[in-house]
């Protein structure tokens, strides 16, 4: 499975377009991390817990997108985009979408 965010691949030809595939994941962090983040709001600096959390959920969103692409028989997802939105306090939705294609 090739996943990229460019529209064409230099070394491969697109045989068939299979349309949009997407994956999303909504996550919240546990209270301990929220408290740590609250402390960090005083001292400033990187919120490692949040960074990890978002990376994990983005990976999960990608995984779901790839699963969907596999289900329609694609072997690559091109032009992948990410989007983030906060749905509630302390929870974030991570969304990944792209075009499923069959490469030769």
């Amino acid at each position: 499975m090739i996943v990229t965010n460019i529209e064409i691949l230099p070394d491969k030809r697109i045989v068939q377009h299979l349309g949009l595939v997407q994956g999303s994941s909504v996550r919240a962090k546990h209270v301990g991390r929220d408290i740590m983040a609250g402390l960090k709001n005083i001292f400033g600096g990187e919120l490692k817990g949040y960074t990890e959390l978002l990376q994990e959920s983005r990976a999960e969103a990608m995984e779901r997108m790839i699963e969907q692409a596999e289900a329609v028989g694609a072997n690559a997802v091109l032009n992948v985009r990410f989007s983030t939105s906060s749905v509630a306090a302390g929870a974030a939705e991570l969304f990944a979408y792209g075009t499923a294609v069959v490469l030769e």
Partner: protein
Amino acid sequence: MIDLIILVTLLALGYGFGSYAESRHYKSIIARENTLRHIPAVTSRFPPMNEGSRDAALVSGSVVVSVDYFKRFIATLRNLVGGRVTSYESLVDRARREAILRMKAEAEKLHADIVFNVKLETSSIHKGRGNSIGSVEVLAYGTALKTDQ
């Protein structure tokens, strides 16, 4: 009275730790930018269509950075008179450069030579008290490619 003492303590803590963390972060950013300079990150949408370009892979880097108490206080004051909020400018600048560096580090792990179609996304994920921005998340992503040159 006790409230004032708490406020001053928080401001002092924020100023002390915040500026120390920021200067250390900038030093580390500059050092890593120099070591990763051989992998250019470009925003061009189309890769060169020659034979040598191959092994396209998505790479990404993200970071969540929080502003310290002192800077948030300054920004609140700035809100009254308007103008450039420099304390937040350095926050997002740091976050963007860090995210791009993490993306490049991932590209280096794949032995890529260049990163194409770099996109940057900024979102505020955590609202601080009084709905002021507490922290921002920056995501940088692009397509790493190998080129024979």
